[in-house]
């Protein structure tokens, strides 16, 4: 009996408590899917949030209708302030609902802001419990707000386009967590995908287009110092053992046309070696490719031609890697290839001495390539 009384009492209390505490109905939430960070003028940050609009109210009352085809209905709202929290405070005064950050999957940072440094600004997203560390970070050529305002014809919102592009892993894919690791890493260098607006097709509204990843931004100590194009970005991906998609087209000297190959498997090993004062890095690349197009008259089933093709492929990859190295190591002098980490792991004692002067030492590291390329499937068919 006593037990029943206690249960009854708890039941009543539960009824009274309902509706308290941190209950958040979805009707009272703005679900943010994308954030844009801009710098309208020095020392000020502008935060733009992209919110897919809940269509329930706008349907005109009759449920079932009001189905905006494509569903690309998003609401943009901006707030300004000296820091991100200040800007968000400003933003919240303009929004009738509470902001839910946990579904933020794209963070777009404007180039100008990135040039002044992103380390301090990103601290907010890392400290706040709601945003995910898995959200993708991009740097935009123009204003981030403009990127957020785009109305992509296919996807629900502009940020979704960016997420899908990043996931495809053709070029760089950097999550907030990766970025955090890069910023804290030994080399202090980071690389981020760079996005730009695709010019809209003719006859379309200026906003009816998407943003796309076309190059990569290079950051040194959290400050953007330059960009590299898509070809070199793939070179960087090779170095970082992150290459997933790559198509290589070669024109063997003796052949009368082009042969295209698609990457099946690519693995890179960085083998550091300290030789007195000279630091050496062996880049060991193993790759397996498939032939996807053969415009020559070569019969690839012949062992000789096959070997020639493999050699050609290795050369092509080495050329790309050399070009990348030239740009990154010699011109920009930024260690986004993560050589520093490799040296630290292999020679933790010696690294302590090198660490302070790494900026000067990095451009002098001697890089040796060891590329092993094989073509697995040449296909049965011959030249038509």
């Amino acid at each position, binding site marked *: 009996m006593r*037990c*029943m009384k206690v249960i009854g009492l708890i*039941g009543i209390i*539960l*009824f009274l*408590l*309902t*509706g*308290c*505490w*941190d*209950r*958040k*109905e*979805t*009707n009272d*939430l703005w*679900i943010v*899917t994308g954030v844009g960070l801009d710098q309208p003028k020095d020392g000020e940050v502008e935060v733009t949030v992209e919110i*897919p609009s*809940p*269509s*329930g*109210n706008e349907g005109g009352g009759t*449920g*079932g209708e009001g189905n905006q085809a494509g569903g690309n209905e998003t609401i943009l709202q901006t707030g300004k302030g000296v820091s991100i929290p200040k800007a968000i405070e400003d933003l919240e005064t303009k929004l009738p609902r509470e902001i*839910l950050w*946990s*579904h933020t*999957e794209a963070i777009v940072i404007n180039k100008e802001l990135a040039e002044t440094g992103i380390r301090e600004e990103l601290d907010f997203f890392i400290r706040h419990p*709601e945003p*995910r560390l898995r959200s993708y970070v991009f740097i935009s050529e123009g204003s981030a707000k403009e990127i957020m305002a785009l109305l992509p014809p296919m996807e*629900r919102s502009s940020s979704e386009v960016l997420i899908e592009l990043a996931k495809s892993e053709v070029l760089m894919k950097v999550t907030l967590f990766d970025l955090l690791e890069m910023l804290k890493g030994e080399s202090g260098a980071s690389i981020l995908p760079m996005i730009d607006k695709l010019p809209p097709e003719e006859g379309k509204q200026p906003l009816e287009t998407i943003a796309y990843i076309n190059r990569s931004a290079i950051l040194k100590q959290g400050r953007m110092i330059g960009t590299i194009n898509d070809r070199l970005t793939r070179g960087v991906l090779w170095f970082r053992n992150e290459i997933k998609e790559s198509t290589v087209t070669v024109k063997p000297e003796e052949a009368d046309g082009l042969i295209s190959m698609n990457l099946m498997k690519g693995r890179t090993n960085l083998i550091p070696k300290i030789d007195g004062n000279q630091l050496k890095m062996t880049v060991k690349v193993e790759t397996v490719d498939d032939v996807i197009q053969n415009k020559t008259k070569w019969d690839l089933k012949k062992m000789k031609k096959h070997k020639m093709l493999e050699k050609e492929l290795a050369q092509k990859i080495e050329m790309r890697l050399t070009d990348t190295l030239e740009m990154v190591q010699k011109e920009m002098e930024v260690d986004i290839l993560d050589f520093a980490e490799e040296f630290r792991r292999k020679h933790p004692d010696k690294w302590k001495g090198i660490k302070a002067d790494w900026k000067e030492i990095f451009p002098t590291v001697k890089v040796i390539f060891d590329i092993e390329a094989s073509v697995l499937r040449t296909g049965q068919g011959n030249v038509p």
Partner: protein
Amino acid sequence: MSQVFNRRKIKFNQKNKQQQDDKLNSNPLYPNLDQNLEVLHSLYKDCSDVVFRSFVIADQTKAQLIYIKGMSNIEEVDSNVLTPLMQKADQNSINPKVLIEQRLSVAEVTRIESFDACIDQLSIGNPILLLEGDQQGFALGLSKWEKRAVEEPTGELVVRGPREGFIESAEVNTSLLRRKIKSPQLKMKTLKVGRYTQTTIMITYIEDLSDETLIEEISQRIKRIDIDGILESGYIEELIQDNSYSPFPQVLVTERPDTAVSNLLEGRVVIIVDGTPFVLVAPTTFYSLFQSGEDYYHHFMIATATRWLRFLFLFISLLLPSLYIAIITYHQEMVPTTLLLTMADSREAVPFPALVEALIMEITFEGLREAGLRLPKQVGAAVSIVGALVIGQAAVDAGLVSDHMVMVVALTGIASFTIPRYNIAIPFRMLRFPIMLLAGTFGLVGIMMGLLAILTHMSTLRSFGVPYLSPMAPMKGRDMKDTLMRAPLWKLNTRPHLTGEYNKYRQDSDQKPSPDKGSEGE
């Protein structure tokens, strides 16, 4: 309060004792027929269904035939009792008792010596024959009353398996068991319970398989019952179960003879109550409530898969609405973005918090279910149409609930029907509501609290000394082969352990069919 209660109890016991004493000094029949009739007439005063028929045996001895209309086979009484007895005797002054032995062509004739025995026999439909000048009467085994034919049980349908079910008559039910277990070790103890109904209760078990102390305990508990009447086995269940305040059934209820027999063979005790097709099986465990007879008739793989499916849907029926409430009000980050956006869309026009929304729909559904059960068949179709509208799109269009809620309620409803035994589905249907409240108040933490409370409670339960959650808690490795999975029959070599000593092996080991076996003939 408790003092008053105790005092009343004492009074009760005294009264009880008196009744029992009366029974012991049962009043014997008189040698005089008229005197006997006088007593019986006064006992059955105003009972228009009791027939007194006086006649003369072989023109010599006055006799009286007494029976209750509709409970005895009148045709047989006519042809096998009255006709032969009323014929003229070949010789004069023959002893009527000898005559009865010679002429009465009835299989079952019992001698009765008291009025109580008289009443007992009459009330089960046996006609009574009283003779002038004889202190003993005869009870003729000619009872016959209307009963249902053996039909397929509607509550426990199977695709494959016997299609017979218990009926309301205890005699038929025992015969169904006896037809499956031919061994004389199948024992049946009969008890009468109920002050007025005097219902027959049979404790059925297999000697050597069931623990003797268990049988003793069960019959003790049944003998303790002293109420006006037993109308269904539910009365017995409620009066003998270990923990009355628990929502969980501690006795298995079945309508199927094959289920009853398989439980008997596992050393359990089957309690048959006259007047209901539902027999009780004790002791039982939580996991045995999830076994269906069909599990053993189909391939063991599909049986195992369906068991897993049942457990999955058990959790769905208990938790789905609560999870929905908790996630939509507290843990939005757990939902994939796209789904959250559509959920937010559909909830946009709903004025209530998710908890209220869920309560409205769940209560509506329970109401519809109840209505569907009780309604006469002719209006049943109307209810299902209205019900489909209420739970369906109409509720969404009216802006009362969101699309996703409808989906959740529908799935929960389906889930609670996948559980093979109705009585184990009930506690989960009920406990859903407190957990929903917890979810609406504390989110996922609340759900976990609720689950822990239920689990703790379940692990304290015992059914006639057997832990409710065994063989999981306490863990008994050997018995696990028939809980979450159903091992192939040639692996089920040991009986599940209930209590105390038990007969461990139920079949020869190593019976897996393989080519080198069965080649003895060659």
